[in-house]
């Protein structure tokens, strides 16, 4: 019974996201594609950051590599950018493994800083290594379907669903319990015989893969990449973290929820109040961290309590 109930909203939601978009205008389809892209990235970040507790400030590395994997094939050999959907995420994983082996020796904030440093280093190298990466000029690819947005939407939707499913399966297996154990107390986890570095890598690999896949989708959809957009610290690495925090780190649906709110909010605010919207976002982030540190999904009980606090008083009064 309980199990049935759990699947009903999921199926209804699934029908909605598949059936509605064809009837929407181009702009709304564009926003939906962005939402799905951010859901992929936030979900991927959450696996490493939220479940395994390794807060990475440099996931733009994987996003950028995912985007550049196909971009470089296009630039040097003129291959279709769709190859990027395979090569990009694989490149992110191949480079991610040595990064993980080095940085996982560091803990907490030092890991975060090392990733931040790596993210910036990649951005600088991709800007300056002109013969290989075309530098700040960037790479132009072509869109397969021209102005048609719907195919891109269904592709990102499928990847987003896949990423959530993969995280769900991982978290509900032995891996998930190991990840949470590492997050809660690394020394205790090690004491219990969990090879922590190896399990952090097991969290990093899918995380890097899906972030890279989002990068490859970005490259295909926007048909233009350059180092400062795909390796950007504040617009990619940090926004991934904020989207996860908004929804709730360490929850399955939190990141997706946060990513959706984040995208809708930033689009709506930009239309409504112009440049001031860039100020509103960090302020919202401050408020979330101060008052709802576990995010909207994670602190749902707290929110419910805050709104229902009057009720018992009324009942008691009578």
């Amino acid at each position: 019974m309980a199990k049935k109930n759990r699947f009903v909203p999921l199926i209804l939601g699934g029908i909605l996201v598949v059936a509605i978009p064809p009837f929407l205008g181009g702009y709304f389809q564009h926003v939906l594609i962005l939402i799905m892209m951010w859901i992929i990235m936030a979900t991927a970040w959450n696996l490493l950051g939220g479940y395994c507790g390794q807060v990475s400030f440099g996931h733009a590395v994987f996003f950028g590599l995912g985007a550049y994997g196909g971009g470089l094939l296009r630039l040097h050999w003129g291959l279709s950018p769709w190859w990027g959907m395979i090569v990009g995420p694989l490149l992110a994983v191949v480079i991610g493994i040595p990064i993980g082996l080095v940085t996982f020796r560091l803990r907490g904030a030092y890991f975060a800083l090392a990733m931040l440093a790596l993210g910036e280093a990649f951005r600088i190298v991709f800007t300056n290594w002109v013969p290989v990466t075309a530098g700040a000029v960037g790479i132009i690819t072509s869109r397969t379907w021209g102005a048609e947005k719907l195919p891109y939407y269904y592709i990102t939707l499928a990847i987003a669903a896949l990423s959530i499913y993969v995280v769900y399966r991982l978290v509900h297996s032995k891996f998930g319990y190991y990840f949470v154990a590492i997050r809660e107390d690394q020394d205790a986890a090690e004491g219990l015989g969990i090879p922590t570095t190896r399990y952090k890598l097991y969290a990093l690999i899918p995380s890097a893969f899906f972030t890279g896949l989002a990068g490859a989708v970005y490259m295909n959809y926007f048909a233009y990449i350059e180092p400062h957009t795909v390796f950007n610290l504040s617009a990619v690495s940090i926004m991934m973290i904020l989207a996860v925090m908004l929804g709730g780190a360490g929850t399955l649906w939190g990141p997706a929820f946060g990513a959706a709110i984040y995208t809708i909010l930033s689009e709506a605010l930009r239309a409504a109040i112009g440049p001031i919207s860039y100020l509103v976002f960090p302020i919202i982030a401050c408020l979330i961290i101060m008052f709802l540190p576990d995010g909207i999904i994670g602190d749902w009980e707290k929110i419910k309590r805050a709104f229902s606090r009057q009720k018992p008083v009324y009942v008691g009064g009578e």
Partner: protein
Amino acid sequence: MTLLGQTIITGILIGGIYAVIAIGMTLIMGVMKIINLVHGALMMVAMYICLVLFKSFGVHPYLGMIPAMVILFAIGYLLQKYFIERVSGVETILPESQVLLTLAMALAITEIVRLIFSSDYQSAYTPFSAKCFYLGDMSISAPYLLSFGLAMVLVAGLHLFLTKTDLGRSIRATSQDRDAAIYMGVDAKRITNFTFGLGTALAAAGGALLLPVFYLFPDVWHPYLAKCFIITILGGMGSTVGALSGGLVLGIAETFGATYWSPGYRDVVGFVIFIFVLLFLPGGLKRIIGR
């Protein structure tokens, strides 16, 4: 040979300015044990204060440094007391909520400044800015040299403050062992607030020293924040001497990278040092120097 000497001189001069900003960071990190990402943005605010003083009242940035330091001390103190303090010790799933809070504050401050001053590049150009004199074939830029001299004065003053006064000793005690300091009657919370203000004021001083030799825009702080971390990690947390030597090492390493490798890769040198120090010399230069 001239090139080598020139590289070393430029590196030392710029490294001294880095050191002032980084000492502010190392003090804060030493006492609070958190990573403070708002440091660079506050430095940028100080630079804008100096710029406004210069443009509207003709106050030279070296003099504008004093009001800027006072204002930034107050801002830092209040930010710590009313925002960052609230988040400390709260149980959350993500362990880095304080770090994220300072980051969000840094982004908010940047956007506020951008709304007021726009993203245009600005600079406080004085006739003095282009002066330089020669040592053999090597040129030494006068504003760099003066900034370096002022930076060293500040570092020396701070060192005296930390070693000779009661307040300074309390800061060092809190940094070394917070619990023990509390047992000895140190008001650790007040000291933390004060240290945050002091560290921010030092960032303001560093910003004011940079203004005559550099240009200014709201995002100017990103590389400096990164340099602060590199120096703090290189020098060891909470150590003034470590931060000074770290600043000089980074300054020289960067100019070497720029001269002999490629100017574009200048910042990569710092990141490479950063990761190597984290991996092979945890504790930083402090461990080699001693105390």
